[in-house]
């Protein structure tokens, strides 16, 4: 077995372990009574399996690093996988400070979704262009990912907080938005399902099109085309033809992916609602009814406070050092940079609101969710839509 195969297998093992651990955490919570500080067998087993998964993923990370010769954070697959790994790491860290089992029930599925999302991108090893060959880049990306992961835990705590606190029996803005968050998670699942299904079928349709600079290019769809590229012509087509042609400004392939994910995600969501006959938030609510709100709030706040300095260091300071070396200026208002700054400003506002305006508890939980939304926006949307120097994919 070659190193790269080993690496892939380790990642797979980690994925399975997280899956099993999620179920175990669910079991632990059902078993537990009283405080949510669960130290019984299920809980212990769950964290042990999580740690095994985490170590396995570290194994993936190291073997891939050795194989490629550079830190595996240089394309969308590698970076996003590492992000998932650091989320699990941050969860383990917080778990050992607070022993809060309920956290695992949300943190691990989030990590699972992120890793699954990552593996929808090409996993090939790609060589680095000169500007990326820098130790500072490695340091910058890893530290930034760690900071983001710790910040993500506050969103996890916030979500649990809201699941417990929001009254799901009467209509309210809170109830709507909480369910919207759950819906988004299902859409990501929809993306994973639709992408992996068609990739298992080796689906491909090829077209030529005219890009916004007027150049003729070729594009390969891995999902049946719903939208056609600007002035597309068929090279090789399977299953269906594009229903609508898009102007050059819009990448119809990406739009197709988004619409497929929404479609499948919505169907999945409806299906769950029909089977369970209640909101997804309501399915989870009983699981978290015993958690200690004070403790959750503290965890949420603590993870922001631990994550914020790490994020500043990684996403801003180290980034500036690298940019100064590679691009001759430490700051270039590249979309990815700007969104890192926006993330930073947002969490600065979060801390000021909490400290000076007393925005704690529910308000703080909502803010944590928005913050994580910004982080994900920077990861997904900025890379895919607002392309800049950081465009991986």
């Amino acid at each position: 077995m070659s190193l790269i195969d080993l690496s892939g297998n380790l990642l797979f093992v980690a994925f399975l372990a997280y899956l099993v651990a999620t179920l175990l955490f669910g079991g632990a919570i059902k078993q537990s009574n009283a405080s949510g500080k669960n130290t019984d067998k299920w809980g212990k087993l769950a964290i042990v399996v999580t740690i095994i998964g985490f170590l396995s993923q570290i194994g993936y990370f190291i073997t891939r690093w050795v194989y490629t010769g550079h830190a595996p954070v240089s394309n969308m697959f590698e970076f996003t996988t590492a992000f998932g790994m650091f989320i699990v790491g941050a969860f383990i860290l917080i778990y050992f400070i607070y022993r809060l089992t309920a956290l695992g029930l949300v943190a691990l599925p989030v990590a699972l979704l992120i890793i699954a999302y990552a593996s929808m991108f090409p996993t090939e090893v790609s060589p680095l262009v000169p500007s990326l060959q820098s130790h500072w880049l490695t340091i910058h990306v890893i530290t930034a990912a760690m900071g983001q992961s710790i910040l993500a835990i506050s969103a996890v705590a916030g979500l649990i907080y809201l699941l417990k606190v929001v009254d799901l029996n009467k209509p309210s803005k809170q109830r709507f938005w909480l369910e919207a968050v759950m819906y988004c998670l299902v859409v990501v699942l929809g993306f994973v399902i639709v992408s992996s299904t068609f990739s298992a079928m080796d689906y491909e349709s090829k077209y030529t099109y005219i890009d916004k600079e007027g150049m003729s290019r070729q594009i390969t769809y891995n999902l049946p085309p719903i939208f056609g590229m600007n002035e597309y012509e068929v090279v090789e087509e399977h299953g269906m033809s594009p229903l609508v042609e898009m102007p050059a400004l819009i990448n119809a392939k990406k739009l197709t992916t988004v619409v497929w994910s929404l479609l499948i995600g919505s169907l999945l969501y409806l299906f769950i609602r029909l089977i369970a006959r209640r909101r997804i938030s309501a399915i989870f609510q009983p699981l978290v009814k015993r958690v200690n709100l004070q403790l959750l709030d503290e965890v949420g706040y603590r993870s922001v406070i631990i994550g914020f300095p790490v994020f500043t260091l990684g996403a801003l300071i180290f980034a500036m050092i690298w940019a100064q070396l590679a691009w001759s200026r430490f700051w270039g208002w590249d979309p990815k940079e700007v969104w890192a700054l926006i993330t930073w400003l947002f969490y600065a506002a979060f801390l000021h609101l909490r400290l000076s305006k007393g925005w704690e508890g529910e308000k703080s939980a909502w803010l944590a969710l928005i913050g994580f939304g910004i982080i994900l926006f920077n990861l997904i949307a900025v890379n895919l839509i607002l392309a800049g120097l950081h465009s991986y994919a």
Partner: protein
Amino acid sequence: MENIICACGHSNPFGTKLCEKCGRPLTEEEKQNKVVDMRYDGTAIRSKTYNKSIVDKIWNFFSSVKVGIALIIITLIAASIGTLLPQEFYVKASDMEKGAYYEDVYGFVGKIYYTLGLSDLYSSWWFQILVGMLAVSIIVASLDRGIPLYKSLKNQRVKRHESFLKRQRIVAEGQITASPEETLSKVEKKMTEMKYIVRRDGSALLAEKGRFSRYGPYINHVGLIIFLTGVMLRLVPGFYVDESIWVREGETRAITGMDGYFIENRDFILETHDNAPQGEQLKQGVNVVAKNFQTDITLYKQPKDAIAGDTENLEKVRDYSIRVNHPLKEEGYALYQMDYRLNELKQMNFQLVNKSTEQSLGKVGIDLTNPKKEYDLGNGVSVKLLVYTPDFSGFENGVPQTATSVPNNPAFLFKMTTPETPKGETSFVAIKQTLEPLGENQYKMKFESVETRDMSGFTIRKDRTIPILFVGGIIFMIGVAIGSYWNHRRLWLQVEPDGHVLMAAHVNKNMFSMKKDLDAVTAFAGLPQYKDQLEPSEEGEESTNRGNTKKEGDNTL
């Protein structure tokens, strides 16, 4: 604005919430609260005290945290708008064409975006003013809060009034059986063991740890201000140089912005990864991935007192290979490998050929960097170069013109003299084009080969603000770290001679670990069990109880 005289006789500045000396609540609001607001230890925030002149009003505006947060949010939204479409400096169009570019590519939206100036948002006056206002807010708000907080913490009394202690989040009250002195000593011992600084005053005790963490926010604000000052200073002449030059292989030229220095481009090297293209590369139609962009250069310096153009006595400074991520650094300047152009024409080789016999009379190699007037091939054969245009753009009144000085499209007017044609024949030779203006010739200049050279684009950067930015960044990080990773813990204990104990504790964050300390000292000294006044009375209450968790002022700046 009257001073407030506390029941203990101390005179507090207007706006004080808790008496500076004994801690009694002074405002009605504080008296109502079960748990007091300890954010600034109850000191008067300066801005709230005077509000008379316009200066005070401006000051108070910026002093407000609410205003600060609003500024952060506005900056955040403004910054995000700038990412909707690419900014002008990423657009490959000349200044004149930019407006048209935005309209062409992004349609009506692009036109509006450009017209509103959003395409150059980050250097717009209003964005700069916004950031400037944020800086003012940081300075004013920190001064107003930091100084009183510092004074208050420095002048803390050990003995506090009962009403102060009872309004802390953590309170314990009860009777002890051991002697007061013994209890106090035990607490002192345990707290000292846990690295607290303990002060005693009669029957009162104050144990304190990590006070410096309260200054974290102010320290990081200082760092931010230093950083912003650095950013501003780059506009001051002499602090910042940003130039770019192109240098061809074999060429030596003066470095713009770096007086007295010359650079020779000895060789430009482009290496590619020799792997088979795969995956994403294939999809994007990229066949090779660059591995290395490098220019081997020699840096020269003029001797002292030398003047511009005097290149006779250049002193070699050093040889260096400038690569991406590895700029050349010299005297505060840095030279970056930023761009390249391959295969610019350097030399063109021709054969002088008899048209009918195809027989060659010799080879003429024309160095485009230094073409000669005449090339003598011996035996009465010679080629004169009458006109050379490096970038031929057409004829004007029969004279060939050049568009630039770069040999993009070289053209030559030759006069070929051979023993057969002693008067000489004239031929105009350009790429893929030969004209014989003075009638049919016997001979021609037959194109044979070219030699090329590459060109490197460098950016020259001097940024004397970097050390300032660096210091600002470090101070900021130190401030954030001590504000985040340490916390300020205090424990007050008062033991009456009759064994009545009143204990209170405060921590600015992380109550969780404070409670661990409290548990330890409670057990060790046999203190009454403490109560968390903010915790729901019964832990793990069934209902989705929200009311109890609403609290203010537990987490201190």
